[in-house]
């Protein structure tokens, strides 16, 4: 449905601000009289707090106040949970342990905040943190997921009988029966390790309580401004419109910024009100690594039952999911894993069991991929194993089982993170893969390129995988579209932006309906003073959910333009058409009224005003989906492995993607490329490592390896399939996380194929050269 603006490769409107250094970020906010905060964090992963002596810190010149948990009195409350427990799933067990705002009684992970210093400058605040004497009795740390599930000798939460955070079982079909019918049953244990969100900009929080207006303003890089506003108002006993949360430009979100119950969110508003002073806190990189949430870390025990010809009969996956010390974000991540494990393929019987474990590690909440990556990883690895076992080509076995166009919509029988039974709405998963192998020229690679390379002593390998991305889940988003008296249009939505390009794509949606220039549409996101209903930025839902609401509001404004213009142009509505920036009489462009003038006329000032007046060329609309829309794709990777150093070079990277209707092909490609770089980072660079005492060994970019531009394939070859989603008028599906999903399994398959002299069996998703070396050493020779 490409139009004048919709579907066009419009350059990003926001880039002129971002690229010329004119964008305002959280740390750019300066308020007269502003104080600065620094947190003291526990060095221990697990310890009983005996005493926190802040007396010296309080005497430190320039220090205004120092607080520990005791100082907050009744205000100190855990949580609340940001996502409800999964009780929509029959038999689900869940132990809610939301985040405490600041450590009390016991610390449960290294980096947990235990005191906060408020001072005239950040330097003073940091120095005064060093004056605090933290006396604690260290306890053994709970680290190993599988052990922690059984072993009750050390408990993260003493009031629970075990370290179980949750147990959720789901079954579609009958796996055990399917297994009895099978010719082969294969099983394997897989590990998907911890990775960080690693946004370029860390968290930040500036809060100002104005005693005279009785209003609180917060500037912060949150992905969820409205839930944060409501949470702050709720905690402070204020009505929602006494709290305004503004998100300035944000240097990346990637998931962890969706949190609304971390220490800064909870205690800084209270302190600002107490001291009647504005306060700023900007997180440093080490704090981000230690205490802001991260993701992955699962151990899977998979089993697959197949017929001799490669047809899948059933799949079983029992997996341990590390939630860290608390579970404030419920089960979003492991539920995403459950839904994504089998969503590509025809799997008649599926048994899946989540064993969510408390550990003495940082809290796990979604990071781009958000559980989907792990599901895709284990399924694709099992497909590779099945292909080996049945002596089939990895592509052939996939094509045999991938869902085809005519099979949609397909009820999966598995309840997802949005607590409704999953429905795969549309697509042609098989065709994605067919297109992908065509683009990468799979036949030629197998028959010519690879044999030739092997003769020359080179180790070239190919990996081909498929994936789906569940996107655009509820609950809802809304938007208000207004034509101004200057003829320009404003769009406000509760959605927030971390760099995705919303200022451009949302403007395109409106420009198309109102026939105004894209640059004449001013988009406001993430300011609760402008729009005060919505959920937040997560699950690749912006373009679909907020975009659909914006589209509906724009359509209503368009209708209003026609109705109003018909009155002033004195012609029936069907004789009105939109010229650029004005409404005119069909066939008579000289008879027109500009949108600005019309907006003025739509706001009656005196005289006869109709009783049901709806002033202005303005409308508000909401969109709520019945369930998420599912994007899909396939990915092929050709790698060149050095069998001595285990350096891996990605020679070709092909990705075919289907996210339904495309609003802006340029931005779509950007989203995919960004996701892919994150996926490649996860596959071969990034890994968070805890030692057995719960100490994070990778709390800086010296030890946590971020991939660089030079580590990316020279060219990303991206193909598109367009199967519009039937769930929304525009036919959009999300795409934000797609690129991050397939690189890990494609990488493993390609490396195994490259090192063809060995029966390599890679069972971990986060590799590096030395791990590859170890896998090679464990492998038997072919």
């Amino acid at each position, binding site marked *: 449905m490409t139009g004048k603006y919709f579907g066009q490769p419009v350059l990003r409107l926001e880039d002129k601000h971002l690229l010329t250094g004119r964008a305002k970020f959280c740390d750019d906010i300066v308020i007269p009289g502003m104080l600065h905060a620094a947190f003291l964090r526990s*060095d*221990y*992963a697990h310890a009983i707090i005996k005493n926190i002596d802040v007396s010296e810190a309080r005497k430190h010149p320039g220090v205004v106040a120092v607080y520990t948990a005791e100082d907050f009195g009744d205000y100190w409350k855990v949580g609340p949970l940001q996502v409800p427990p999964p009780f929509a799933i029959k038999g689900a067990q869940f132990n809610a342990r939301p985040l405490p705002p600041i450590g009390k009684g016991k610390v449960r992970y*290294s980096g947990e905040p235990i005191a906060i210093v408020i001072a005239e400058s950040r330097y003073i605040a940091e120095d005064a943190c*060093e004056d605090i004497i933290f006396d604690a009795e*260290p306890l053994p740390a709970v680290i190993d997921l599988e052990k922690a599930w059984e072993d009750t000798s050390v408990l993260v939460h003493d009031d629970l009988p075990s370290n179980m955070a949750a147990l959720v079982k789901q079954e579609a079909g009958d796996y055990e029966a399917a297994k009895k019918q099978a010719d082969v049953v294969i099983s394997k244990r897989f590990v998907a390790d911890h990775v960080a969100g690693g946004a370029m900009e860390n968290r930040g929080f500036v809060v100002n309580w104005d005693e005279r207006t009785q209003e609180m303003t917060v500037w912060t890089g949150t992905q969820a401004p409205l839930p944060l506003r409501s949470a702050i108002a709720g905690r402070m006993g204020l009505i929602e419109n006494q709290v305004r949360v503004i998100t300035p430009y944000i240097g990346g979100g990637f998931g962890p910024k969706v949190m609304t119950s971390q220490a800064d969110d909870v205690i800084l508003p209270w302190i600002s009100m107490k001291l009647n002073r504005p306060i700023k806190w900007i997180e440093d990189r*080490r704090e981000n*690594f*230690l205490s802001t949430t991260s993701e992955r870390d699962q151990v899977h025990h998979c089993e697959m039952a197949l017929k001799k010809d490669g047809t899948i009969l059933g799949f079983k996956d029992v997996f341990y999911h590390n939630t860290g010390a608390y579970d404030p974000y419920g089960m979003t991540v492991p539920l995403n894993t459950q839904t994504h494990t089998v969503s590509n393929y025809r799997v008649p019987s599926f048994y899946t069991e989540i064993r969510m474990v408390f550990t003495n590690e940082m809290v796990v909440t979604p990071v781009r991929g958000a559980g989907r990556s792990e599901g895709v990883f284990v399924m694709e690895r099992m497909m590779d194993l099945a292909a080996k076992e049945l002596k089939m080509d990895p592509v052939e076995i996939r094509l045999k089982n991938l869902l085809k166009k005519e099979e949609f919509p397909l009820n999966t029988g598995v309840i997802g993170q949005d607590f409704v039974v999953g429905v795969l709405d549309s697509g042609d998963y098989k065709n994605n893969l067919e297109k992908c192998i065509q683009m990468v020229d799979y036949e030629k690679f197998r028959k010519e390129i690879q044999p030739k390379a092997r003769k020359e002593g080179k180790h070239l390998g190919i990996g081909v995988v498929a994936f789906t991305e569940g996107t655009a889940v509820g609950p809802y988003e809304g938007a208000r579209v207004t034509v101004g008296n200057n003829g320009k249009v404003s769009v406000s939505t509760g959605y927030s932006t971390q760099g995705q390009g919303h200022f451009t794509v949302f403007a395109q949606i409106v420009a198309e309906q109102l026939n105004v220039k894209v640059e004449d549409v001013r988009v406001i996101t993430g300011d609760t003073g402008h729009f005060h209903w919505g959920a937040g930025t997560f699950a690749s839902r912006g373009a679909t959910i907020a975009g659909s609401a914006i589209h509906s509001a724009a359509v209503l404004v368009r209708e209003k333009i026609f109705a109003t213009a018909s009155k002033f142009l004195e012609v029936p509505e069907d004789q009105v058409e939109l010229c650029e920036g004005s409404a005119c009489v069909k066939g008579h462009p000289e008879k027109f009224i500009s949108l600005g003038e019309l907006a003025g006329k739509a706001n009656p000032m005196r005289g006869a005003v109709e009783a049901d007046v709806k002033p202005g060329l303005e409308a508000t609309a909401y969109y709520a989906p019945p369930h998420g829309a599912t994007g899909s794709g396939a990915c092929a990777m050709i790698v060149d492995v050095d069998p001595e150093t285990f350096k891996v070079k990605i020679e070709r990277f092909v990705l075919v993607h289907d996210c339904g209707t495309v609003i802006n092909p340029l931005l779509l490609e950007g989203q995919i490329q960004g996701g892919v770089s994150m996926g490649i980072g996860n596959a071969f660079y990034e890994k968070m490592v805890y*030692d057995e*005492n719960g*100490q*994070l*060994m*990778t*709390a*800086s970019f*010296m*030890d946590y390896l971020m991939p660089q531009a030079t580590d990316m394939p020279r060219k990303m070859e991206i193909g598109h399939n367009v199967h519009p989603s039937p769930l929304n008028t525009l036919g959009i599906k999300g795409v934000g996380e797609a690129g991050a999903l397939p690189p890990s399994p494609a990488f493993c398959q390609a490396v195994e194929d490259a090192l063809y002299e060995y029966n390599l069996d890679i069972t971990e998703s986060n590799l590096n050269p030395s791990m590859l070396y170890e896998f090679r050493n464990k492998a038997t020779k072919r």
Partner: protein
Amino acid sequence: MNVEGEYVFNGPQQAVYDMFNDPNALATAVPGMQKMVQVDETHYEGAIFLRIGPISAAFEGVLSLSDINPPESCTLNIEGKGKAGFAKGVGHVKFTDLGNNQTRLNYSGDVNIGGTLASVGQRMIDSVAKSMIKSGCEKLQKTLEERCQQK
């Protein structure tokens, strides 16, 4: 973190052993050690300033001796804490008379570290520990030679 190694001193076993039980000798030998005070027969309190990669910070701690078996072996328990984290470790030292006025020190230990020391410094700490032990032993060798000469 595991630390393991050996060093051969030119001196008799008893003299080497005595030196290791002398807080003053140890205090001067360990790089960055700022004080070492004997609290009782088997306990010492100390302060040390360490530089490990980007971290430079003061640590205070207690050293205690157990399984004392002069002049052959003993166990050292260290517990230290500072602005940049904490360390807790157990070390076993063994002195073997090699004859010919030579004594071999074998040490092995397990140290747990936490805080910035672990999250930022762990990559360097192994090599820092090794170099500290090496230069410590060299310094002790000199002290030993001086002592033997005085006798």
